[in-house]
C-alpha cells in the first residue's frame, strides 16, 4: 500500500514538473510573439507614409517623384522585412519567401498605378493609389505577422 502511494506521488511530481516545463515553453513563445506585436504600429506608420508618397505625386515635380519613390521603397522594405531592433529573427520558410515576393509585387504595382495616374493627369487615380497603399501595407504587414506567429508555435513542436 505504502509502495503504491510512493509510486503515485512520484508520478504526480513528474507530471507537475512536465506541466510546469511546458508552461515555461508557452510563456517564452508568448514573449517572442509579444516582440513582434510591436510591429503592428510600424505597419500603420509605414502604410501612412507609403500612402502619402503615392498621393504626393499630384505635385508633378520630378524631384518630388524621385523622393516619393525612394520613401515608398523604404516603406516596402520595412513592411516586408524584419527590423533587427525586435531582437529576434523569425523562422522563415518557403511560404515566407513567397509571401515577401507577392507582397512586394502588389505594393510596387500600387505605386505604378499612382505613376500612371500622374502621367495621365488623373488626380483620383493617385489619390486612390495612396489609400490602397495605406490599406495594403497594413494587410500585408499583418499577414506577415500571422506567418511569423505560426513559425513561433511550430518551432517548439506546439507544446499544448
Amino acid at each position: 500500500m505504502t509502495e503504491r502511494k510512493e509510486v503515485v506521488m512520484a508520478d504526480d511530481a513528474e507530471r507537475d514538473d512536465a506541466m510546469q516545463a511546458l508552461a515555461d515553453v508557452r510563456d517564452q513563445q508568448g514573449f517572442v510573439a509579444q516582440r513582434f506585436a510591436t510591429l503592428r504600429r510600424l505597419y500603420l506608420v509605414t502604410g501612412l507614409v507609403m500612402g502619402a508618397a503615392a498621393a504626393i505625386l499630384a505635385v508633378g515635380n520630378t524631384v518630388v517623384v524621385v523622393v516619393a519613390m525612394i520613401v515608398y521603397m523604404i516603406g516596402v522594405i520595412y513592411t516586408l522585412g524584419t527590423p533587427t531592433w525586435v531582437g529576434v529573427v523569425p523562422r522563415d520558410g518557403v511560404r515566407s519567401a513567397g509571401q515577401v515576393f507577392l507582397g512586394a509585387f502588389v505594393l510596387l504595382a500600387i505605386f505604378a498605378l499612382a505613376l500612371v495616374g500622374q502621367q495621365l493627369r488623373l488626380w483620383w487615380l493617385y489619390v486612390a493609389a495612396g489609400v490602397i497603399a495605406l490599406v495594403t501595407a497594413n494587410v500585408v504587414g499583418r499577414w506577415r505577422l500571422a506567418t511569423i506567429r505560426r513559425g513561433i508555435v511550430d518551432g517548439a513542436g506546439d507544446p499544448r
Partner: protein
Amino acid sequence: MESTAHFDELIHAPYRLRICSLLAAANAVEFGTLREALGVSDSVLSKHLSSLSSAGYVRSSSAASVTHRRRLWVSFTPAGRLAFQEHVKALREILATTDESTPTDGS
C-alpha cells in the same frame, strides 16, 4: 525530420529550457533579448549558453547593426532544434502517460 520523444537533462534545467524555448521560436535571438526574457545577468546567461554550446546545441555569431554596435545573435544548431523538439515531445508523453495511469474515483 520526424522527432522521437527523448528527455534531455541538459535542456530541462529551468534557465536552459527557457533559452531553448526562445531559440526554438525563432531563427536567431539577440543576446540582450535573451537576457531580458530571462531576467539574468550577462555572466549567468553566458554560462548556460556555454553549456548548450558545448553539447553542440547552440551557436552564436556577431553582426554589426546600423548603429555600428556589434550584436551577438544566438541560434539553434540542427541538432539542438531536434533535441529540443524531442524533449518537448517527451514532456507531453509524461503528461499523457500519467493522465492514463491516474486512477479515477469509483473505478
